[in-house]
């Protein structure tokens, strides 16, 4: 049995309209504490307006060994990028 507190991943929304981004991780004994620690460690210089925390063990991650199978097939399919189309000026940023 480990006596370390579980690890939580911290996601911060920098301002409304933006999506949450991974900021780092904290140790905490429970969910409330994880939120407090995330606030105290990652938002002390006004970095955020919203925080998500999730137990690191709850994250399902892809296996680096599968990289070739998962990601390489997309590399030669440049026609999937919408760069061949002219965007009318009125549309603005997409």
């Amino acid at each position, binding site marked *: 049995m480990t006596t370390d*507190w579980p690890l939580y991943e911290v996601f911060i929304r920098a301002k409304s309209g933006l999506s949450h981004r991974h900021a780092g991780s*904290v*140790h*905490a*004994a*429970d969910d*409330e*504490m994880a939120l*407090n*620690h995330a*606030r*105290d*460690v990652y938002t*002390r210089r006004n970095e955020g307006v919203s925080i998500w925390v999730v137990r690191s063990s709850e994250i399902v991650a892809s296996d680096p060994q599968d990289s070739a199978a998962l990601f390489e097939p997309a590399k030669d399919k440049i026609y999937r990028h919408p760069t061949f189309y002219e965007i009318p000026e009125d549309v603005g940023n997409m």
Partner: protein
Amino acid sequence: MVDKDQALLKYVLRLGDNALVHGQRLIELVAHGPELEEELANANFSLDYLGQARMFYTYAGKLEGAGRTEDDFAMLRPEHEYENLLLVEQPNGHFGETVVRSVLFESFYLLQLEALVQCNDAGLAEIAARAIKEIRYHLRFSSQWLIRLGDGTDESQQRVQASLSESWTFTGEFFAADDVDKVVQDEFQGPNLEELQQAWRNNVATIVAEATLQLPEDQWMEISGREGRHSEYFGFLIAEMQSMQRAMPGLNW
């Protein structure tokens, strides 16, 4: 009876003293916290308190009009001129003891600030409004910890229960109104300490119940802090806090 201006000055200084001394105790936890994240949290809280002390002392200097600055009040007064609550100067003890002290003090301080936001002295009301947000978070943090430890293992429960019973003797002082409190209440629409006491008891009882702890019986209360008579620990606290200013007067950076 104290005169109106004198009472306000003393009241503001007491607020500064509470913030400074509680903040000094919390900064002592740096390098002694149970976890890195807890250390950072407590150091942040300490800096919040230091910031509040600066606002109170700067305002006190303005009220006094004798040219004293925040540093004069914080660093150059002798022990008996500090009129902080005795609770905040108590040693940190184990982590649970610091948590208990923080819950008891912050649940009072928050109510005090909420009342001061309504007072008719604009300077004080403004500082209170700024401080209030910080203290809401501190209290949330400390009360969650009390619940975690109280409703934790047998040992953690037993230890915070003992801390709660020991600290209780310092809580009567929060509400022991003297002339200064009365003048601030009457002349500046400051806090009504009897009402505050009711609200405080209710709030603390809720947290204590959730922590599966027993609210201590009211007993004999220590109330000499605001007369400048401190517990034996206070001399050591300010000796350390003031040591740089005493060794190198006027030191600045």
